[in-house]
C-alpha cells in the first residue's frame, strides 16, 4: 500500500513541473452539485489532475489548449482555454447507459449493437454487498441464471443458465476470465472435475476476489455462445477483471465484517417427545410385548432405552419418573448442536491501487478473506493478489499482462472418508443424530463415547478436534497479450489488427485428511490421507480483427485460431493406525506405517483445437447482423468424430432510431433481436471412448495375482461403461427473440427474451441390460427441447434530486421436455426418462396418505393379494384399482424436480447518502423428494405429525421400531412442492457527502450494514431450506466500509 501511495503522490509532482499559466476551475453536474474526482486533462498531453472535494481544480495550460473533462457515467466535455483563468464546467449525465461497452466473446461491443441475449453485471452491483464470491452477488439479479447457495466456507453452489437440457452431461456454463476460457474448473476439486460429468459448480469464481472483478457478462442464447462452439451449450460466463484507468490514480480500501449464526429450519423433538415417539415405535413393533407410547412403564423404558448400558442417560430418563408417574417435560433435552456450532465471523479486506496514463495503466490489489464457519472446524482463508499492466509501447504495439493469484486454506470440517459408508458427513448432521435424552458427559466430566449406548451413534462432542480435512489451493490465472495495429504500420491496412493472447492457468491442490480414533466415523483406529494434484492448462489465441466503415455501412471481421491443452496429475495415499496423532497426514513414511491402506497416481491430458470466423455488420446504426462459425476438434473423441461445426447468426433492429419513432418522446429505447445458433456440450471425460478395463488382484492362496476384466462391481473402479467409439458432442440449436426497451425517460426499462432450443445427440449415461456385461454406456441418442422466457424489468417509481426508488424484477421460466430417446418415441423407465415429460422427474408410487381404521375393508383386499398393510402405515395409490401395488401398473410421474420459475426481486431506495435495499429470491413449480420420515425409530427425529393411537389423522405413518422397515412405502409421503420465496438480504448504507470529507484526505467513504437471510416469505416445506437444500442455513449481520483516497 505504501508503494501505491508513493505512485499516487508522485503523479502530482509530475503534473506540477510544467511552466505554464494556471487555470482554476470547478466541475459540477446538472444539479450544480460539485463533482469530486472528475479528471481534467490537457488534451494530447500527459498533463492532468483530479477535482477536489469541492469540485475545484487547478491546471497549467496555455491559451488554445483543449481541456478534456470526464467522469464515469457522464458525457465527456471539451473546453478550449481562452483568456479567462476561471472555468466552470458542467458535466451531463450520460443517460444513454445502453451505450456502454460490454464484453462479448473475443472482443467488446457497444451495448446498443449487441444482438444476443446477455446479462451484464458491473462492478457497482458486485460490490453492493459483501460476498465471498461473485456469484453470491449475482443471485437474483440475472434473469435465467439460477445460482444455488452453499454455506460451507469456501464453497459455491451450482450454477444453471436457462435450466438443464442435458440428461447426463454437465449443465455447467463455460467460464472465461479475461478472454481465457478455463478448462477443468468445473468442480470444486480436481477429482470432481474428472469424474463429475454432472457437476455444475462455478469453481473459478470462488478463487477470484469479487472486488477485483470489473464486470461479469453472462451470455445466454446460442447466437452469443456459439463462438465458443463445443463448450457453449450451457451458457458462457465472461469475467473481466479490473485494469488501471487512464488518468486517475486511486487507492481503495474496502473491508467488512460479518457475523453469522447457523439456523435450523427443522424442529427436533425434545427428549420427552422423543421418548414417547420411540415407545410408540416399539408398541407398533409388537404390541403384545411393549406398552403403548402414552402408557409407559419403567421396566419397558429401561429395556428399550438401554438403561443398563448408559446409566447417565437413564438417570436423565428417570427424572421423568421422579414424581411416580411419567412426566416427559422433566427430562432435560440435550442440544447436541451447540457442541459443534459457533458464531461465524467473516472479515474481508481488500486494498487496491489503480491508475495510469495514455501509455501505461496499472492495477494492483491484495485481498484477504477470513471466514470462520458457523460449524466448528470449518473455516476458510483466502489471499488474493492481482497485478495488471497495460503498455502502449508505440502507436502500433500494445502489450498487456494480468495475473490473478489466489492461495486458500479451507478447513472442510468433519470428514467421513475412510469411515463407515453410512456415517454422517458433517458435524452438524452427526450432532442431530445424537440422542436428545442422552447426556454428553459422565460424572467425572469425561465425554461419553456412545451416549445412549447405541454403537452407531458416537458422540459429536469435541469432534472438531478429532476430524480434520484441510484443503490448500494455489491458483494463478494469467492473461498475456500483444496487439499489433497493422494499420499504423502500413496505411492500406487501416482497420486491421492482430492480437495474440496467451492464457495459462495453474492450480495446485493439496488435501490432508485425518480422522482420529476418537472421531465419529472411526472405531478404535485412526486414518489419514494425503492428496496432491496439479493441473495446468494453457490457451493460445491468434486473432485477426478488421474494422471498416463505408458510408452507412460498418463492418467488423474477426478470425480466430486457438488451441488449448489441459494436463492433470495427482497422487494420493492413505493409511490407518498412524502412531502419532499429531503427525496427521504428514508422516506417512516407511518408518511409521507398515503398509499404506491405499495409494494412487494419475495423469489426464486433453486438447482442443479450434477455428472461428465472425462478421459484425451495421447499417445506419439501426440494422445489425452478427454471424459466426466455429469449428472445434477435441482429443477425447474417437478418430472420425473429433471435429464439429457450430454456426450462428443474429439480427438486430434498433427501432428507436427509426424516424417514425423518434417523434415519440416516451420511448427512450427499443431494440428487437433475433438469433439462432448451434452449440455443443463437450463434457465427455477423456479416455471414455477408449474402452477402459478394470485391473484387479486375485489372491491365489496368499499371492495377489494381477488380472483384468471388463466389468466387476466388487471393485471400487470396476463399474465400467461399455465403450462407445462413436461418441460425439451433444448439440443444441437455439432460437432467441429478444426485446430491449426503455420508456418514460428510463423510468421503465427492461429486457425480454423468449427462446426455444432443441438439443440432439444427447450425451446420455444410458442404463443397458446387464446381459451385455455392462450396466451402462455413454451414448449420443435422443432429443430434448427447451422453451422459456427471461424478463428483466427495472422500474424507477420515484426519482427526485434527493430520493430515488428502484425496483428490479427478474423472472425466468424454463420448461424442458424429452422429445425422443434411444429408440425414438419410446419411454425409458429404467432411466426415468419419458417422452413429452421433463428431463428430471420422480417416477414412483403416488401417496394416498396413510391407512385409516375406516379403510379396513379396502386394506383387507390388498392384504389378500399378499400385501402387509396395517392401519397407520403409508398407503401408496393403486392406480389401476386391482388391489395390488405393482411396479408395472402403479408407478406414475409424480412431478418434475427442476424449478420452472426462478424469481429475483430487488428494491432499493436512496435518500441523499442513505441507501436501503432488499433482495428476494425464489424458485417455483417443482417437486422435491424429502424422503419421508424414516420408520426405523432408532435415531433422533424431527418433530413431525405421526400416527399413533391419539393422533389417527396424522400426516405421516406410524413409527415402527424395526431397522428393516416393515412400512416399505413410507417414502412416498415425502414428495412435496418445493416452491419458496426467500428474503436474501436487507441492507442499509450511507455514503458520506463530499463536503463532510473535506480536509480528511478521503474522496469517498461508504458505510453499510446488511442482514443476510432474515426469513422466508413462503415455503411449502418448512423443515428444509430449499435454497441450501439442507435443514440449516446461515443468517447474520455484516458491517462494511469502503474508502477511496
Amino acid at each position, binding site marked *: 500500500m505504501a508503494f501505491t501511495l508513493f505512485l499516487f503522490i508522485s503523479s502530482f509532482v509530475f503534473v506540477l513541473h510544467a511552466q505554464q499559466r494556471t487555470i482554476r476551475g470547478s466541475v459540477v453536474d446538472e444539479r450544480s452539485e460539485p463533482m469530486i474526482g472528475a479528471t481534467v486533462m490537457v488534451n494530447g498531453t500527459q498533463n492532468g489532475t483530479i477535482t477536489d472535494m469541492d469540485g475545484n481544480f487547478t491546471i497549467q495550460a496555455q491559451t488554445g489548449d483543449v481541456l478534456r473533462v470526464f467522469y464515469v457515467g457522464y458525457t465527456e466535455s471539451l473546453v478550449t482555454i481562452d483568456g479567462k483563468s476561471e472555468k466552470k464546467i458542467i458535466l451531463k449525465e450520460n443517460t444513454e447507459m445502453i451505450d456502454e461497452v460490454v464484453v462479448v466473446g473475443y472482443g467488446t461491443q457497444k451495448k446498443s449493437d449487441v444482438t444476443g441475449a446477455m446479462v451484464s453485471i458491473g462492478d457497482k452491483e458486485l460490490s453492493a454487498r459483501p460476498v465471498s464470491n461473485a456469484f453470491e452477488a449475482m443471485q437474483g439479479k440475472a434473469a435465467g441464471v439460477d445460482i444455488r447457495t452453499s454455506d460451507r466456507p469456501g464453497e459455491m453452489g451450482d450454477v444453471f443458465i436457462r435450466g438443464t437440457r442435458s440428461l447426463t452431461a454437465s449443465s455447467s456454463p463455460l467460464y472465461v476470465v479475461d478472454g481465457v476460457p478455463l478448462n477443468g474448473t468445473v468442480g470444486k476439486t480436481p477429482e470432481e472435475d474428472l469424474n463429475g460429468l454432472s457437476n455444475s459448480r462455478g469453481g473459478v469464481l470462488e478463487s477470484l476476489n469479487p472486488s477485483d472483478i470489473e464486470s461479469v457478462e453472462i451470455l445466454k442464447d446460442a447466437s452469443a455462445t456459439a463462438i465458443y462452439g463445443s463448450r457453449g451449450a450451457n451458457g458462457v460466463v465472461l469475467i473481466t477483471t479490473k485494469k488501471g484507468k487512464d488518468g486517475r490514480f486511486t487507492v481503495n480500501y474496502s473491508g467488512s465484517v460479518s457475523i453469522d449464526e447457523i439456523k435450523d429450519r427443522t424442529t427436533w423433538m425434545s427428549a420427552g417427545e422423543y421418548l414417547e415417539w420411540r415407545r410408540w415405535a416399539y408398541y407398533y*413393533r409388537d404390541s403384545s*410385548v411393549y406398552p403403548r407410547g402414552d402408557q409407559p412403564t419403567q421396566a419397558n423404558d429401561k429395556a428399550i432405552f438401554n438403561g443398563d448400558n448408559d446409566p447417565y442417560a437413564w438417570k436423565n430418563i428417570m427424572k421423568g419418573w421422579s414424581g411416580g408417574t411419567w412426566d416427559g417435560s422433566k427430562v432435560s433435552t440435550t442440544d447436541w448442536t451447540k457442541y459443534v456450532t459457533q458464531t461465524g465471523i467473516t472479515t474481508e479486506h481488500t486494498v487496491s491501487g489503480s491508475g495510469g496514463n495514455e501509455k501505461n495503466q496499472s492495477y494492483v490489489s491484495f485481498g484477504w478473506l477470513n471466514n470462520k464457519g458457523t460449524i466448528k472446524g470449518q473455516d476458510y482463508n483466502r489471499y488474493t493478489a492481482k497485478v495488471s499492466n497495460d503498455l502502449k509501447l508505440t502507436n502500433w504495439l500494445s502489450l498487456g499482462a494480468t495475473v490473478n493469484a489466489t492461495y486458500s486454506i479451507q478447513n472442510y470440517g468433519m470428514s467421513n472418508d475412510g469411515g463407515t*459408508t*453410512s456415517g454422517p458427513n458433517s458435524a452438524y448432521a452427526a450432532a442431530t443424530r445424537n440422542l436428545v435424552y442422552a447426556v454428553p458427559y459422565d460424572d467425572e466430566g469425561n465425554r461419553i463415547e456412545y451416549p445412549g449406548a447405541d*454403537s452407531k451413534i458416537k458422540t459429536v462432542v469435541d469432534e472438531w478436534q478429532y476430524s480434520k480435512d484441510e484443503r490448500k489451493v494455489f491458483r494463478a490465472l494469467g492473461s498475456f497479450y500483444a496487439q*499489433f495495429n497493422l494499420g499504423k504500420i502500413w496505411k492500406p491496412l487501416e482497420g486491421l489488427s*492482430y492480437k495474440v493472447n*496467451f492464457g495459462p492457468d495453474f492450480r495446485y491442490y493439496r488435501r490432508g485428511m485425518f480422522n482420529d480414533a476418537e472421531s465419529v466415523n472411526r*472405531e*478404535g*483406529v485412526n486414518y489419514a490421507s494425503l492428496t496432491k494434484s496439479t493441473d495446468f492448462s494453457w490457451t*493460445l489465441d*491468434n486473432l485477426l480483427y478488421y474494422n471498416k466503415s463505408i458510408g452507412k455501412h460498418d463492418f467488423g471481421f474477426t478470425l480466430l*485460431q486457438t*488451441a488449448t491443452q489441459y494436463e492433470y496429475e495427482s497422487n494420493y495415499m492413505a493409511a*490407518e*493406525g498412524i502412531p502419532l496423532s499429531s503427525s496427521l497426514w504428514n508422516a506417512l513414511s516407511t518408518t511409521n506405517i507398515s503398509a*499404506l491402506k491405499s495409494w494412487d497416481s*494419475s*495423469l489426464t*491430458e486433453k*486438447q482442443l*483445437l479450434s477455428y472461428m470466423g465472425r462478421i459484425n455488420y451495421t447499417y445506419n446504426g439501426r440494422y445489425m447482423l452478427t454471424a459466426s462459425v466455429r469449428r472445434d476438434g477435441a*482429443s477425447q473423441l474417437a478418430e472420425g468424430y473429433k471435429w464439429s461445426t457450430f454456426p450462428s447468426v443474429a439480427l438486430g433492429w434498433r427501432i428507436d432510431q427509426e424516424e417514425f419513432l423518434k417523434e415519440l418522446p416516451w420511448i427512450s429505447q427499443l431494440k428487437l433481436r433475433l438469433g439462432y445458433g448451434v452449440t455443443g456440450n463437450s463434457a465427455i471425460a477423456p479416455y471414455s471412448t477408449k*474402452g477402459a*478395463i*478394470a485391473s484387479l488382484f*486375485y*489372491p*491365489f*492362496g*496368499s499371492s*495377489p495375482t494381477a488380472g483384468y*476384466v471388463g*466389468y*466387476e*462391481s*466388487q*471393485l*471400487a473402479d*470396476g463399474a465400467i461403461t*461399455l465403450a462407445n467409439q462413436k461418441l460425439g458432442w451433444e448439440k443444441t440449436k437455439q432460437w432467441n427473440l429478444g426485446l430491449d426497451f426503455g420508456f418514460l425517460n428510463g423510468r421503465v426499462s427492461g429486457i425480454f427474451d423468449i427462446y426455444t432450443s432443441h438439443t440432439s445427440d444427447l450425451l446420455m449415461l444410458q*442404463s*443397458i*441390460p*446387464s*446381459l451385455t*456385461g455392462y*450396466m451402462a454406456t455413454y451414448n449420443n441418442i435422443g432429443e430434448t427441447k427447451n422453451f422459456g422466457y427471461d424478463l428483466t424489468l427495472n422500474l424507477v417509481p420515484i426519482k427526485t434530486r434527493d430520493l430515488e426508488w428502484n425496483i428490479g424484477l427478474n423472472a425466468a421460466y424454463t420448461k424442458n421436455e424429452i422429445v425422443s430417446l434411444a*429408440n425414438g418415441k*419410446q419411454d*425409458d*423407465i429404467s432411466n426415468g426418462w419419458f417422452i413429452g415429460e421433463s428431463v428430471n422427474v420422480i417416477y414412483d408410487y403416488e401417496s394416498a396418505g396413510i391407512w385409516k381404521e375406516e379403510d379396513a375393508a379396502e386394506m383387507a383386499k390388498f392384504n389378500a393379494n399378499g400385501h*402387509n398393510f396395517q392401519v397407520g402405515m403409508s398407503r401408496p395409490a393403486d392406480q389401476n384399482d386391482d388391489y395390488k*401395488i405393482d*411396479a408395472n401398473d402403479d408407478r406414475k410421474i409424480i412431478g418434475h424436480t427442476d424449478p420452472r420459475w426462478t424469481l429475483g426481486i430487488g428494491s432499493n431506495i436512496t435518500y441523499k447518502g442513505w441507501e436501503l435495499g432488499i433482495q428476494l429470491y425464489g424458485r417455483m413449480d417443482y417437486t422435491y423428494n424429502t424422503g419421508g420420515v424414516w420408520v426405523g425409530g432408532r435415531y433422533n427425529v424431527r418433530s413431525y405429525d405421526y400416527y399413533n393411537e391419539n393422533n389417527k389423522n396424522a400426516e405421516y405413518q406410524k413409527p415402527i421400531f*424395526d*431397522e*428393516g422397515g416393515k412400512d*416399505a412405502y413410507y417414502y412416498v409421503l415425502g414428495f412435496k412442492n418445493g416452491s419458496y420465496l426467500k428474503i436474501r438480504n436487507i441492507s442499509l448504507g450511507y455514503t458520506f457527502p463530499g463536503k463532510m470529507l473535506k480536509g480528511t484526505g478521503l474522496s469517498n467513504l461508504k458505510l453499510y450494514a446488511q442482514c443476510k437471510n432474515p426469513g422466508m416469505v413462503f415455503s411449502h416445506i418448512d423443515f428444509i431450506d430449499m435454497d441450501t437444500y439442507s435443514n440449516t442455513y446461515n443468517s447474520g449481520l455484516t458491517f462494511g466500509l469502503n474508502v477511496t483516497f
Partner: protein
Amino acid sequence: MLAGSLTLPVITSCSDFLDEKLTTDQNTEYFDTDEGVESLMTGIYYNLRYHFAFEWGFSTTNYGTDEFIVGGDGSNAMWNSYISSLSSDIPVVNINTTHAYDVWDNMYAGIATANTLIKKCETYTGSKKNEALGTAHFIRGFNYFKLLRQYGGVPIKLEPSTSVELEFTRATSQEVMDQVIADLLEAYAKLPETESVEGKLTQSAAAHFLAKAYLWRASEINDSWNASTQSADLDNVIKYASEVITDHPLATNFHELWAYTTPDGSNEKLSEVVLAAQFTSADATQGKYGNPQHLYFLNIYRDLPGMARDISGGREYQRLRTSYYTYNVFNHLNDSRLWKSFRTKFNCTKASTTGTNDTYVAGDRGLMFILNQPGDNRFAEIWNKESVKDAETGKLVPTTFAIYPSGSNETSNPMEGDTYLKYYAPLSKYMDGSRKTVSQEQGYRDGILARSAEDYLFIAEAYIRKGEYTEALKYITPLRTRAQWKAGEDRANYIDGGGAWNENALGWSVYTAVAGKGTYCNRNSYYESNNVAAGTLNSQASVLTVTDITSIANLPAEDRSVCEKLGVSSAYDVAMCFLLNEKTREMCGEFVRWEDLARTQTLVKRAKAFNKDAAPNIQSYHSLRPIPQTYLDIIQKEGKALTADEKKAQQNPGY
C-alpha cells in the same frame, strides 16, 4: 518480426495435437493379446467372490428358511419374511438392502466375461488355451446355474456384446439347465485335474457342480418336464460326486474346517475344500467388500455387562438369528458339530466390572448360552443375571441365556420374542479375528463354494431318489461318524475364527493396548447345557449311528421331532426329511439352504413350521425369485419397450 510473431504461436499440425494417448491403463484391445487373455483368465475369478460379498449371499440363500430368522437388524428382512416388498422392485430399507437385481446383474457380468474369454481364445496362441476355455465354461455354467436356482428360466446369451443390445427374452428352465450342463461338461473336459496354485479351478470343481446340476434337474422343482432325464441324471450325480469324494478326502475333525488362525492358514488348504473364493489380507486384493460374512451371523454382546465389542468377537450385524429348528436338529450330547458350529461362551473384555455378587475382570466368562432341552427346569429365566456358574471356573457368569427356561416347552420358542431377538448363540463359521480393526468389514477368510462333504450328501440324495435307502445311508454315515466325539476329545473345547486375533494379527497391537484380552473364549457350554459334570465325558467316544432312514420310529429323536412337525410319513419323504436335516447339521449357514428347499419343494412346509417371520406370508410361488424390474423395464420387443402385460408375462407367477 511481425511475420515471426504471426507464425510462431500457431499450432500447425492438428492431427498430432488432437491425438489421445492413454498411457496409464490398458483398454479392451489388451484382450486381443495372449497376455491379455491370460489376465482375463485371472480376472474372471473375482466374480466367484460375489457369493460372499456384501449381504447378497445370505439374503438369497439363508434367509426365509428353517435355519435362520432375522436377528436384531432387518435391513434385508423382506428376504426372510416374504412380505410383499419382496418384489421385482424391492423398496430399499437402507444401503444394505439386497435388490431383486443384485444376483441377476452380477451373474450376467461374470457370464459376459466368460463369453469374452471364450471368444478371445479363438485367436489365442499361448499354452494355456485349455485352462482358459475350461475356466470360462466353468464360470458361465456356474453362473447360469446360480441364475436358474434363483429365478428359474433366464435369457441365455453366449456371445460378448460390443454395442448396446436390448432384445432379450427368457429361456425355459430346461434350456438353461441344458446350457449349464453343457458348459460344465466342457469345463470338466478342459480343466486340469489338480490345482497349480491354491484356489484354481480343477476338474473336481466342475465335477462337483455337475453332480449338483444333475441332481437339480432330477429334483421336484422340475417335475413337470424332467421325467425323461431323471434316471440318467441320478447316475451322473453318483458318478461325478464319487470322483470328487475320491480326490478330496474329508478333513478328520469337523472343526478343522473352521479353525481359522491366520489368513491363508491350514484350514483353507484342506483336501476337503474343492473350490473356495480366495480372499487374503493384502489390501490390493480387498475390493469394495473383501469377505464380510464374519459380520452377519453375530449376536449382540457388546451391551452386556463386562462386554465390549472387540476384533475377536466381531462386529455384530445380527442379520441371521439361529432358529430353534437349528438348535434342536442336533443331538446336543453326541453330535460335535453343534458345538463346533455355534459359539456359546464369551469372555469379558472390560478391565473390571462390578456385579451384584462378584467383580469380573477381562478374561472371566462374560456371556454364556445354554443350549438345553425343553423340560429342563434348572433355569428360572431366559436371561439369568449372575445366577449361573461356569462349570469350569466356578464363577458366576454375568449373563447367561437359557434357550429353554423353566416351564417352557418345545413349541414355545421362548427366545424368539422381541426382547431377545438380538441375543442368540451365533453361527461361528465365518468369524475373522485377523482383521485390522473391529469395524473393518472386509474380512480375509476364503469363501468355500464346494467341499466334498456336500458330495456325500449329493450321492445319498441320489440313492434316496432311486429308492436305494441302504445305499444312501452309506454316504451319510461317514459324515455322522466324523461328527461323533472321539475318545479323549475335550468336548468343551471350542475354536472359531476369533482365534485369529493373536499376536501375529494385523489388529493385535491396536487392541491389546485397549482391553488386554478379547471376548474369544476357547470353551463351550457343552457340559452346562447338557447338565453333565464338567469333563466327565471327555474320555468316551459318542455314537451317532442311524440304521434306517425310512421310518420315523427308527430315526433319532431330533429327526423324529422334525418329521412329525412336518407331517411326513412315506419312506421317501422321511428319508428326504432326514437328509435335509443332516444337511443343516453338516452345512448350516453355508449358502445352500434356500435353494435346496426350493429345489426339493420343501421350502413352504419348512418355512411355515420353523420360521415365524415367513410362516404367515410364504406361498408356493416363493420358490422362485422375482425377475428384476430393472430388466423388465429396459428390454425391448421389436424395438419397443414392453407393455405392462408383456412385462407381467415375463415375470415369475405370483409377483
